[in-house]
């Protein structure tokens, strides 16, 4: 097990190193840099002024030199300064982590709580009205774009309750605080729940046909025990993989949701920073995202190993 762990950690570090190079180089290959954008916004074209600002921001150095400066800073805990706000990058990123973290966790929590039980019910009641209803719901979840769903939810909320769960100031009450997270979380989590529901259903259908499930039933085990204890436990492996992947990919969904619900989180900030070519913010933020994704994959691998002894032994 320790050898397996060491190999996984080594692979994780190697992946992060590769990602850091890709992020850094790609960002600089995109046409237009921060200085171009600064000048664009002011409608200026004086090349001497451009050179002066490029030097001020360290953009006159070669790409490998810039990379070494970044890496060395990263290893010493110095993430640099935002070109736009001129504040330390860490000060810009840190306050936004809990905002997006709360939203992402709530969204994935909602997706699991909705997707897994409904997937089980759909499988157990295969080809019944309930199954058809849930399959339509899951198809809708996969088909409806989240920006449209978000706007519809906002309009409905505004029309029916007079409240608008949009972030314009710190929430005044506990209810407001809950709404500000819950409504966008449900909007963004709806798609993931649909995916989880469909996957749980198909995994459950396969497991429910296994001999040991029939044996459990023959031995007189109740439907709940058979479905949730024996069958679901064995059907969960692919579902866990998808939950891990969905958590990692949630950042993409959050960009739209954070924009529609005006949430001052990391995803919207990342897009804005890319638009401004604010390299220190973008590269550190993408590294953070990569770290989260790689860590989730690592956690999923560990969970596999814990759930399936064959993986441990194989290792």
């Amino acid at each position: 097990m320790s050898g397996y762990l060491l190999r996984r950690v080594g692979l994780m570090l190697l992946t992060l190193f590769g990602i850091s190079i890709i992020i850094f180089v790609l960002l600089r290959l995109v046409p237009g840099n921060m200085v171009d954008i600064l000048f664009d916004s002011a409608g200026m074209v004086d090349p001497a002024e451009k050179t002066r600002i490029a030097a001020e921001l360290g953009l006159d150095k070669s790409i490998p030199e810039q990379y070494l400066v970044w890496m060395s800073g990263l290893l010493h805990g110095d993430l640099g300064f935002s070109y736009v706000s001129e504040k330390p990058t860490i000060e810009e990123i840190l306050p936004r982590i809990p905002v997006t973290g709360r939203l992402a966790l709530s969204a994935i929590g909602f997706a699991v709580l909705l997707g897994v039980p409904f997937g089980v019910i759909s499988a157990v009641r295969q080809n019944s009205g309930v199954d058809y209803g849930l399959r339509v719901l899951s198809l809708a979840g996969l088909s409806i774009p989240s920006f449209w769903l978000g706007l519809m939810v906002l309009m409905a909320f505004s029309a029916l309750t007079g409240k608008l769960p949009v972030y314009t100031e710190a929430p005044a009450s506990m209810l407001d605080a809950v709404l500000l997270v819950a409504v966008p979380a449900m909007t963004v989590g709806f798609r993931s729940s649909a995916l989880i529901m469909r996957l749980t259903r198909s995994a459950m259908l396969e497991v429910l046909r296994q001999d040991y499930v029939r044996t459990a039933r023959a031995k007189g085990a109740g439907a709940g025990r058979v479905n949730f204890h024996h069958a679901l436990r064995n059907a969960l492996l692919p579902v866990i993989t998808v939950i891990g992947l969905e958590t990692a990919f949630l950042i993409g969904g959050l960009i739209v949701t954070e924009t529609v619900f005006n949430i001052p989180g990391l995803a919207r900030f990342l897009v804005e920073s890319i638009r401004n070519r604010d390299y220190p913010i973008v590269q550190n933020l993408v590294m953070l995202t990569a770290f989260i994704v790689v860590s989730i994959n690592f956690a999923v691998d560990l969970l596999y190993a814990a759930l399936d002894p064959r993986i441990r032994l194989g290792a």
Partner: protein
Amino acid sequence: MAMKQLGLGGWALALTLATSVALAQTPKSGGTLKIYQRDSPASASIHEEATFSNNVPFMGIFNNLVIFDQHIAQNSPDTIRPELADSWAWGDGGKTLTFKLHPGVKWHDGKPFTANDVKCTIDLLQGKLADKFRKNPRKSWYDNVQAVVPNGDLEVAFKLGRPQPSLLSMLASGYSPIYPCHVSTAKMRTAPIGTGPFKFVEFKQNEDIKLARNPDYWRAGKPYLDAIEFPIITNRATAMLAFMSGKVDMTMPTEVTQAIRRDILKQAPKSVCVTAPTNVGLNLIVNRNKPPFDNADLRHAMALTIDRKAFIDILFEGEADMGGALLPQPEGIWGMPKDMLATLPGYSPDITASRTAAKALMAKAGYGPDKHLAIKVSTRNIATYRDPAVILLDQLKEIYIDAELDVVETSVWFGKIDRKDYTVGMNLTGNAVDDPDQSFYENYACGSERNVTGYCSPELQKQFDAQSQETDTAKRKQMVWSIDAQLQNDVARPTIVYGRAATCWAPDVHGYTAMTNTSYNGYRFEDMWLDR
């Protein structure tokens, strides 16, 4: 008799109504005004930015020497009012402008404001100090200022190279705040310090901007508001829902289209919405050094094929105006009269006749039904640029020009224009001050940084200087119209239309005047109050 018929009850009612109206108009102190902000400004430094996204939230922090009257919708030299300067006087044949400064003014950090701060601000704008702006988009406004000379703490003189009456108008713009000498440009970009009615509290990128009342403001009793908050809402649909549901008290100025205005008035009928010109001109840029457009006939043919009414109807639902280099009358002060405008290429209401003439010019250049000219029309990848470019493509087809749309990302747009790596482009130009000097020197003068087409006419340059020195407004207007006509005849940068847009606010918001010939100068907010 009529008075008698009113009776005692009627008089009581009338008095009550009159009193309530009077009370409603008496400003109340307190409250927080919320205005949504469409985007996160690049910085908090007004001098370094060229968008009203910066003026709206930050103008309240500062004062100018002089300012356009915040309650008169049309900015003009006659509406310039004292601010940090109590008075001003021209001397030395119009070559010296002396300001007497208001005593006892303090910066938000408690330090005294002096004439030296005025000198520092202009020196910074002219790049004379060691500490420099990152960007200095309006440097050309001060080209004629040779020196700023303080005389004690409360008097300062601007020494000019030649008379320039318009300098006062430029100093009255929202783009001309006085900066403190003792604060670095870097600090001004992140946490600005001013002498204005509101103090900077915070600017969180993509989240909000907050200002708080300056309790030591040198104008006693002002401002009325305790605070102003600008939540940054980038999604327009969300922003409008936030306004209609009362989460914000006011839309960002000029951000409301006619369709949205109708929706707002349907959903929140008590809202007040004012539509006004933005003084942002949609214009055609033609690379006159690049074949085939080095041929003046082709440039002229392009100008003749433009159907401005189609742009106005399709893009603005009729809420836009035709004009030349300067905003058209009546909201614009310097725009050409309509009958004069109609004589210029592409402005005639008879579009068929114009296009017939355009086709003749195309034929002269060797193009016709059997030989079309293929070009690319470049534009920024923003809807306000892209949509009119599509209409232009259609109109160019009428004269055998097959144009393809070349959509350019914002980050590379100016670099492309700078390299003159385009043939024809669709562009937008905002004018901060409705003034010929601002427009001519910034957009058409030889060598100006913002003269994106590189148009240069030494003869017109002389005329720019001549009108700039003219103190007789009527005479100057004639000169300006003549220059404007020559620019249009020369197809220097044909203006297609000037759009109009609306601003909406809740009925209990008072003291705001939507400007009609600028989008940049009306945001001091010190007289705004909430009837709550």
